[in-house]
């Protein structure tokens, strides 16, 4: 009998053109929370998909409780008590929350095989309540926000009563408070005897939860350490293969003239009275709890979801924005929150993706000049340092973080003055995060005005000049970075009062 509930040896997985995993090892003890870390594209998600039977490995073997197992499909893994929360939410948008939770292991009457809906709804409600969520189990999955969907995914993993639970970046879409809730549940699961593999790019998560850490880099196994054996800096070196000198490379940029001003911006039923100003060279962090309405404000400025109250001024001129095209022409660019749905053509090459917003620049009277286009694509792809070999590599073959870099590169082609980044570092590894911060800082120093939507306090505090806090569709605070702390921001994000009481700039 082995000491490990799960043990993988010499796992290799090759995708056409990519060696995603190269002879990696992994050992999971009973009742342990084991963090799996590594850069974007290191092969973490691929690794867990092998454990859950979604992919089959090209080489290597897997031992479950000391016995060798092979899974032909995810069902086999489920039957043996392995459950997973996948990185990219894999829900059924047309079905109810209950069904999403129980898909594959529905409760059925033993004799008639009839689905026991009532029982399932009740159990789903219980599970969700346990997770501190009040989502109605009968509501349709597609109507929930990403964060809510994530919670349902967690409930789904819990519902299988699995002995091994794998969580692939479950906190990426959650706020601190929701993350706390998740920590609590995870620990409870561990105490109940489950073993947990936890993937995250956030060091807080790792330090808060894990007792062991395994690091992958470029598909290779680097090592496994106890959480207190190694310093944070050494972890970063293990993951990235070099030192990341400065996580928040904020360059002090000269704050220039005003380029964007919102006056009482509002959209009935969504948000109201949003006013702030943005200057050249300034990085403005728009923060708040998930669902505070930040994305909606950004999308209103970008013309996706036109506003119906208030005014927008660009460089002092009042403008009307009815479509993204309008706003791009005014020099406003937007990096959407959901890169897969809103940011990328997954079936296209990197290059084509990068040049899509500004085709006019590589065309003459509508005719595409492809060589010029490819040249620009190459330059930009290199500038954001995408991990790819050619600009013709498909976007779908990139890992999450690298996909994000491609979306950032899309913004850099246009002649923009104002760049709005919605959760730009969600699900991005430390190295890439630093790279994105660097790009952000560079942009500011070149005179761009940058709006950064973020829920992560360190990044808000580390990168911004000015902080706008939102709650339930209203601005509850506009703070100068010089005199704030995490507490003041949180206070603003949770108050029940309006702007005036919190203090303004």
């Amino acid at each position, binding site marked *: 009998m082995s000491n490990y509930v799960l043990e993988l040896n010499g796992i290799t997985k090759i995708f056409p053109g990519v060696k995603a995993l190269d002879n990696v090892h992994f050992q999971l003890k009973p009742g342990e929370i084991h963090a799996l870390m590594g850069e974007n594209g290191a092969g973490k998600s691929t690794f867990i998909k092998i454990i859950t039977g979604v992919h089959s490995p090209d080489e290597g073997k897997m031992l479950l409780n000391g016995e060798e197992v092979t899974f032909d499909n995810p069902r086999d893994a489920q039957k043996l008590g392995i459950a997973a929360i996948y990185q990219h939410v894999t829900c059924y948008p047309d079905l109810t929350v209950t069904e999403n939770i129980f898909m594959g292991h529905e409760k059925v009457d033993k004799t008639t095989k009839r689905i026991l809906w009532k029982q399932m709804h009740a159990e789903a409600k219980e599970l969700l309540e346990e997770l501190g969520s009040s989502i109605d189990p009968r509501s349709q999955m597609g109507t929930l926000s990403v964060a809510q969907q994530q919670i349902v995914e967690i409930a789904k993993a819990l519902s299988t009563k699995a002995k091994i639970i794998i969580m692939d970046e479950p906190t990426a879409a959650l706020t601190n408070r929701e993350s706390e809730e998740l920590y609590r549940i995870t620990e409870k699961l561990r105490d109940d005897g489950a073993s947990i593999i936890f993937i995250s790019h956030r060091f807080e998560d790792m330090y808060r939860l894990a007792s062991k850490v395994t690091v992958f880099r470029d598909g290779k196994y680097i090592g496994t350490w106890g959480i207190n054996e190694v310093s944070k800096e050494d972890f970063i070196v293990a993951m990235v293969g070099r030192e990341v000198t400065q996580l928040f490379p904020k360059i002090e940029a000269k704050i220039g003239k005003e380029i964007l001003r919102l006056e009482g911006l509002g959209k009935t039923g969504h948000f109201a009275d949003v006013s702030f100003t943005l200057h050249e060279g300034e990085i403005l962090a728009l923060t708040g709890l998930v669902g505070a309405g930040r994305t909606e404000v950004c999308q209103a400025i970008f013309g996706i979801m036109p506003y119906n109250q208030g005014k927008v001024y660009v460089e002092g001129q009042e403008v009307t924005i009815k479509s993204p095209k309008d706003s791009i022409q005014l020099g406003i660019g937007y990096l959407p929150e959901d890169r897969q749905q809103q940011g990328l053509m997954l079936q296209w090459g990197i290059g084509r993706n990068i040049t899509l917003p500004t085709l006019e620049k590589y065309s003459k009277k509508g005719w595409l000049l492809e060589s010029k286009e490819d040249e620009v694509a190459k330059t930009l792809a290199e500038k954001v*340092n995408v991990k790819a070999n050619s600009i013709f590599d498909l976007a779908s073959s990139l890992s999450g973080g690298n996909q994000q870099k491609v979306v950032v590169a899309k913004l850099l082609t246009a002649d923009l003055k104002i760049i709005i980044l919605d959760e730009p570092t969600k699900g991005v590894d430390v190295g890439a995060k630093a*790279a994105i911060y660097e790009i952000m800082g560079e942009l500011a120093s070149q005179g761009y005005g940058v709006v950064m939507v973020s829920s992560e306090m360190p990044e808000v505090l580390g990168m911004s000049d000015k902080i706008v806090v939102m709650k339930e569709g209203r601005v509850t605070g506009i703070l100068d970075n010089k005199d704030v702390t995490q507490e003041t921001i949180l206070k603003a994000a949770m108050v029940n009062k309006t702007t005036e009481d919190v203090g303004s700039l």
Partner: protein
Amino acid sequence: MEKRIITNKKQFDIKSFFLQWEWMLVLIFILINIMNANFSPYYLNTNNLLNATMAFLDKAFIVLPMAFVIIMGDIDISVGSTVALSAVVMAVLYNAGLPMGLAMMICLLVGATCGFINGFLITKYKELSAVIVTLATMTIYRGIAYVILENQASGGFPMWFSYLGWGYVGKIPFMLIAFAICAVIYGLLLHKTTFGRRVFAIGNNDTASRFSGVEVDKIKIIVFTLAGLMASVTALFLTSRMGSTRPNVAMGYELDVIAMVVLGGVSTAGGKGRMIGTILSIFIIGFLRYGLGLINTSAQVLLIIIGMLLIFSVMIPNIKFKKRKKAKEA
């Protein structure tokens, strides 16, 4: 920070070049010609072959914009009815005393308007799929044609009008030349312009296209308008070939047209496809029918053969790729 070098040079890979769908179509095309030449002594005759193109090229004009529509992930099943309506309007106006040239312009205008209405409804009511909208307008357009002409036929066009469908430039049918010109224009539009690129973008992911500043609605409307416009071009050629028109012309054209587009390798899931393949498939189906017609194959056998062709030509590369994938995974 280490910088990665990313190439912008396309690697020429002979294997994947020849694995392209279009080669498959070329192969089928050659096979069909060899077969036809063997079976019928009348087949390998330049004049016959050129004439044969006139019999199937009328619909081919709609195939071109239909490829755009399907690449966008939509579908237009109202085109057959649009042909009928625009032809009927033209005939009625001409017989009411309008000059033929003007009547023809109006025919094109009617076609474009029908297409525009489709596009408008589809973009304005996004909850409705293109299938249901064009299903409804299909009935409406044909219905209006019935209202206008009832059980009459209308014709009596000037002599020169028959040139469209029956005339030759040298030995080459005028229709073939007209089609070639349209095919080149549409091919370039799809593959070499910003417009075409955006059509592909919409087919791949219309949300992301919108976020990238692509005017999705505008492009959709333009594409549907083009489909309507080309349907009325078909109306011109078809009417010329028949010398008169009725409300029930071009019945069922939509399915023929869609079949040609999908055989050409355009995915109904959207986002994929090439003009070359589409054009090849027009000639594959056209010549196959013609060759089988020359040996007087019965309609039922013809149906079965075309059905099988559609399935097998799509299936063969699938099997091949699946095998390769399996071999790799094993």
